[in-house]
């Protein structure tokens, strides 16, 4: 193995950076590579929905009730073929799914990032300060994590009320504890190491030690938790919206699309619920597979 590497021309050997090593290990698994590219494709669909969709499903001028509940593959009155059928209001399902993906991904990713920032700050504070601050924060985290996420989310939605901002707040409050616990765990291990001691001996300010020395070394587990939590947040938002306590009707995420198709299910018009669900499943599954692979690659204990 090593003999072959040495025989390569020097110019072809790119310097090995952590990112490059991570990428090559990650893509060694074909399943993970497929999941990663399918996720990129989904993000692409969501970002460019207005240009990719044959119809703006929420523009009343381009939707007619004439097309209501058209079966998949039939030609709508606007002239294009509705490959995934139409819903009860005559909206093209493919277009509705593209727009729904935008909202589902947007809410999931945005709440994930804010929760990541909040949870990280709190977790770092707990680990670096220690003492009663640490004890108090970890008690709150333990208390919250002893209840399932769906229950905490329902409590919050019941208290806060309906609306996109309220759902975001609920998702952030549900997720921050996972990040705080993860960050605190790895920060506690890292802060006993020599490089932190060295930084402290240099009398660097606390903020510099925390953000420039401690935080970068806690990143690996955070990336894993962040990926899996984002999938979880998307699923949770869809569930809340399906139950009718999540996003309002003006923000039709995938969960709402599925809920809209529910009433047509019993009369055999499966496509109104089936295809948005498939899109949701593909999104969650590809993120989960990427997260699983990242966990294997980033876990130092499994290093071969």
């Amino acid at each position, binding site marked *: 193995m090593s003999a072959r590497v040495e025989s390569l021309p020097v110019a072809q050997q790119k310097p090995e950076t952590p990112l490059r090593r991570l990428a090559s290990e990650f893509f060694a698994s074909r399943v993970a590579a497929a999941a990663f590219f399918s996720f990129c494709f989904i993000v692409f669909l969501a970002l460019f929905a207005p240009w990719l969709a044959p119809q703006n499903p929420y523009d009343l001028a381009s939707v007619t009730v004439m097309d209501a509940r058209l079966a998949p593959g039939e030609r709508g009155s606007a002239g294009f073929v509705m490959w995934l059928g139409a819903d009860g209001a005559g909206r093209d399902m493919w277009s509705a799914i593209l727009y729904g993906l935008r909202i589902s991904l947007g809410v999931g990713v945005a709440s994930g990032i804010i929760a990541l920032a909040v949870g990280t700050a709190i977790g770092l504070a707990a680990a670096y300060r220690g003492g009663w601050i640490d004890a108090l924060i970890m008690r709150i985290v333990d208390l919250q994590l002893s*209840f399932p996420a769906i*229950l905490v989310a329902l409590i919050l939605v*019941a208290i806060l009320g309906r609306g996109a901002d309220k759902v975001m707040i609920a998702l952030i409050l549900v997720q921050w504890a996972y990040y705080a616990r993860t960050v605190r765990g790895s920060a506690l291990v890292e802060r006993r190491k020599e490089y932190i001691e060295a930084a402290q001996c240099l009398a660097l300010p606390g903020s510099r030690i925390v953000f420039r020395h401690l935080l970068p070394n806690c990143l690996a587990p955070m990336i894993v938790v962040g990926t899996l939590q984002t999938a979880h947040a998307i699923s949770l938002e869809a*569930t809340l919206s399906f*139950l009718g306590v999540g996003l309002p009707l003006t923000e039709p995420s995938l969960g709402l699309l599925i809920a809209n198709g*529910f009433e047509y299910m*019993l009369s055999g018009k499966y496509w109104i619920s*089936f295809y948005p*669900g498939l899109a949701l499943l593909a999104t969650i599954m590809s993120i989960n*597979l990427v997260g699983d692979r990242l966990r294997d690659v980033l876990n130092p204990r499994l290093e071969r």
Partner: protein
Amino acid sequence: MVFVIRRVLQSVIVVLVMSLVVFVGVHLVGDPVHILINDDMTKEEVERFVRKLGLDRPMHEQYLHFLANAARGDLGNSFVHNEPALKLIVERMPATLELAFAAFLLAIVVGIPLGMYAGLKPESPGSRAIMAGSILGFSLPTFWVGLMLIMVFAVMLGWLPSTGRGEFGTWDGLRHLALPALNLALFKMALVTRLARAGTREAALQDYVKFARAKGLSPSRVVLVHVLKNILVPVVTVLGLELGGLIAFSVVTETVFAWPGMGKLLIDSIQRLDRPVIVAYLVITVLMFVVINLVVDLLYAALDPRVRLREMKA
């Protein structure tokens, strides 16, 4: 004994903290007066109403009042049904518990054999399929699977009823239970499969299993007695903690299958802003959770003395 008292005290504190959170949340964030009055009430009527509910008193007094009433089992009347909120919840509890326990059993009966098979033959195609299936089980949104189950088994094949609940213990009751229980069990099935697989792989390398094999015991006896017994403890402990999760997640399944349980009542109440019922549901569920966690913890400590000792030191 000290350990038991400590844990019970901790649980009481958790209940008090949660009641405070729920109370402050429900009564401070949303103005209850605003929801309770209708627009054509006069100012005097509103004031009398506020005084009657004690909403003019300071917050801590209101909270103590709420606690005292809650201790007597009075959590207020439902605005919609005009009945005690607690009664409404308790009436629907058997349906939810029936569903949760059926799902619990299903998860164990299906998950453990699948997981043990995958653990004993990790490289076989069957095991790979099982593990891929378990990832699918984690990723599938529960409510969508419920819809798909209705579509296939109720609409297309017409084998099973899609909504409602039958008489408990009858054939009809079982037929109604089948789809919701399967739906609710799916996620836990994936979890049990993974736990059982990990446990089996670990146990298969242990000396007592090697010894049992060396003694010349039949492979089935080694697997069914020596391996199974030793993976049951961790699997059952985790599942015990997950029982609460089943009750919480039954909110989703009950809504899909119109199962008349507590969860469906909660969703209906949130949509109608029926706050006393919401508070009653939360109080009952938190209590259930704390009791489940307490029982599992105590059982675990009884089974594993190391846990007890560690707690004593802390």
